[in-house]
């Protein structure tokens, strides 16, 4: 059969052009357009296939682009940053110092806000507390220079109160860590630990409340004298949400795992719907509860070291892990990156740079302009299939992870960092599918198997350090989409008769046939992709074919008749009957 020629749609052509332009411009592209209504110029930056709005100028973007060596590892990291920013899902990079975790985050902030933009950043330390994160009331800075005895006395009392509170916090953290270490070392049971944690909180909560009420009373008393001015200094988290006149900032939180666990928990508030940042956070200040609404530019990214390699072995608290998209930079990825830097003399050898940093198509996939939408197309069989695959993969991943876990070295035991899976990841996957559907270059249709693979890589597999564990999970996914022995399964009449009993999870019965889930997704996408125009064109074609076949049959029968009539061996009487 001759090969079918496929003409790409204008949309597909544009996607290909974008990909080519990205390859030519080193993975980062600037674009601007004029809003037809407001006539306002809108700027966009396309970062490895993900387009987001920017405040940076074309020149800034060009300059920043040249400062990044996009090794395969960097491409993965930068693309992850761009995807999470676009979906406003908070991200954490975990890896050794010097692998470029905060370096790339800062470059990204500059690609969005300009080369000279101030960056909102906290470096976590064992002493980082709510003062830096949320903020605090304090006598106005100028008051410290005052000689007024009332002011001096207020400052002395304030400092004393702060010191006492700090001491209580330090003690809380020491005890909290001790209990956790004992659980890990098997020195105490979970039940016993829970009881001790409860007792710890019983001791700590009243101290917290006492601090708040004493501070409040100090503020009230001293404000009444008219001599002391107090000010609320918003911390980084509140600024990230509502600073810049409500537009918000990108906040970088470096060395997150060094922050004491009770203060890490302040960030639990950022967990919102569908695994994205919450729409607002609340803060109990001295004037009551204040709500900080998330600005349109708010985003938070975290960097953390492997607890196994950090003095004190601090880790990110488990409930927080579920609120973050988590990407470990494995030792192998770090080494690959360093090799590129060494072999290109830090990016200075331009020819070698081109040779060693080609854009990886699997990473730099340009999403389709208009994907299939849940409310319209996906809300039927196709959506149900996707939901089933997400459900199956999530359950199996969590089960295997809990049984086998992950290792930082081949010889090492289970990882210190534990993850909690409470159901945010599947929701993130669905949100991802709304924005990052990719096209199958051969068929031109949306490739949901590949889109799902990309999503699972981002939200699940990226959490793992061990390459062995990553491989195992990828194989699991492959089995869910296309089981290995699919040809043999398809031929099994027993399974068909038993209405699918005995089928592996990666295969289903569809219209009385056994198909893999990948095949089914493709069939359903093909059906869903047919437009009304295409439908009527196909119907017209079918009608024309039928008419042609009918005419041909008429001609053929006439030819046969003519040849019979001309045959001298056929008697005239028969010919007469035939003519009639």
């Amino acid at each position, binding site marked *: 059969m001759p090969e079918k020629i496929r003409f790409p749609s204008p949309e597909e052509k544009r996607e290909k052009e974008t990909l080519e332009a990205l390859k030519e411009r080193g993975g980062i592209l600037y674009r601007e357009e004029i809003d037809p209504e407001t006539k306002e110029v809108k700027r966009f930056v396309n970062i490895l296939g993900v387009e987001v709005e920017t405040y940076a100028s074309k020149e800034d973007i060009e300059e920043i682009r040249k*400062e*990044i*060596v996009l090794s395969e590892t960097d491409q993965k990291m930068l693309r992850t940053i761009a995807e999470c920013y676009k979906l406003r899902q908070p991200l954490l990079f975990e890896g050794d*110092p010097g692998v*470029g975790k*905060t*370096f790339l985050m*800062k470059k990204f902030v500059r690609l969005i806000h300009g080369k*000279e*933009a*101030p*960056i*909102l*950043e*906290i*470096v*976590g*330390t*064992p*002493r*980082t*507390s709510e003062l*830096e994160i949320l903020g605090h009331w304090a006598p106005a*800075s100028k008051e*410290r220079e005052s000689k007024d005895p009332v002011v001096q006395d207020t400052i002395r009392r304030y*400092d004393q109160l*702060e*010191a006492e509170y*700090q001491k209580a916090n330090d003690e809380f953290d020491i005890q909290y860590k001790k209990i956790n270490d004992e659980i890990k070392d098997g020195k105490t049971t979970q039940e016993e630990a829970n009881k001790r944690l409860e007792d710890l909180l019983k001791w700590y909560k009243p101290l917290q409340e006492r601090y708040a009420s004493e501070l409040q009373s100090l503020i009230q008393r001293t404000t009444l004298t008219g001599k002391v001015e107090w000010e609320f*200094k*918003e911390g*980084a988290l509140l*600024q990230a949400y509502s*600073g*810049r006149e409500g537009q918000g*900032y990108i906040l970088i939180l*470096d*060395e997150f795992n*060094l922050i004491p666990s009770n203060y890490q928990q302040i960030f639990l508030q950022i967990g919102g719907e569908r695994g994205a940042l919450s729409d607002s956070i609340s803060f109990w200040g001295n004037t009551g509860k204040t709500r900080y609404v998330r600005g349109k530019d708010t985003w938070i990214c975290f960097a953390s070291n492997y607890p196994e390699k*950090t*003095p*004190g072995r601090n880790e990110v608290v488990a409930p927080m892990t579920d609120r973050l998209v988590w990407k470990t930079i494995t030792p192998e990825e770090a080494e690959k990156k360093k090799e590129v*830097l060494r072999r290109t003399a*830090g*990016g200075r050898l331009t020819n070698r740079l081109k040779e060693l940093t080609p854009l990886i198509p699997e990473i730099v996939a340009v999403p389709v302009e208009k994907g299939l939408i849940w409310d319209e197309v996906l809300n039927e069989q196709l959506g149900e299939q996707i939901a089933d695959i997400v459900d199956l993969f999530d359950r199996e991943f969590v089960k295997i992870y809990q049984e086998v876990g992950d290792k930082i070295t081949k010889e090492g035991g289970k990882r210190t960092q534990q993850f909690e899976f409470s159901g945010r990841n599947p929701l993130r996957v669905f949100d991802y599918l709304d924005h990052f559907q990719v096209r199958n270059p051969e068929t031109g249709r949306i490739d949901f198997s590949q889109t799902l693979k990309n999503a699972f890589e981002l939200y699940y597999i990226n959490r793992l350090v061990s390459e062995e564990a990553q491989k195992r999970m990828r194989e699991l996914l492959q089995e869910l989409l296309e089981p290995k022995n699919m040809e043999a399964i398809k031929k099994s009449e027993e399974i068909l008769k038993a209405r699918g009993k005995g089928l592996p999870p990666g295969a289903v019965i569809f219209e009385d046939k056994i198909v893999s889930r990948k095949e089914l997704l493709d069939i359903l996408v093909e059906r869903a992709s047919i437009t009304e125009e295409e439908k009527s064109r196909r119907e017209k074609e079918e009608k024309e074919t039928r008419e042609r076949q009918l005419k041909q049959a008429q001609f053929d029968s006439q030819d046969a008749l003519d040849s019979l009539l001309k045959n001298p061996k056929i008697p005239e009487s028969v010919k007469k009957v035939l003519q009639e």
Partner: protein
Amino acid sequence: MAKKLSQKNQKELNQFFEVIEKVAVPSDLRSRRMIYDLGLIILEPNSSLRANDIYSLFPPGKVRLFLLNDKHEYESFLKELVIANREGQWFLVDCQADPSPTIITVLKQISEDNAFTVFHFEGQELFRMDLNPKTRIIFCIDSDFLEKEITYPFFMNLFGPVIRI
């Protein structure tokens, strides 16, 4: 004061200051932008030297000395740092308290970007400042204090040249 310095120490310190003054490193592996390192002077247990003695080695006006003796303190530190930076002075910190998280953040930013950003400073929500090409930052710390009291585990990584005297 400088009398307490042996000739050997004097020589080593001069070399140390020269390195701090002249040697720049790329801000990151790719960048051609060169930045100057922060320096760390560790005073050994048997040393009778103090930060004031180091300070007195410089010509008047070249260095601004700051005593960090309160672990919650950061505002005065920032004020003094900004003044030193505006004047193109060196900033010598007599570190007698565990630096607050804000100070650690500022030091890490300077060591990576040659600039720092702090919030709520000089009336700005976010205040950004590039380091003056003439300014250098040196911390002077007792070795015992460094071992026992500094809580930030990567404190030493913030500095380039380190000298023990």
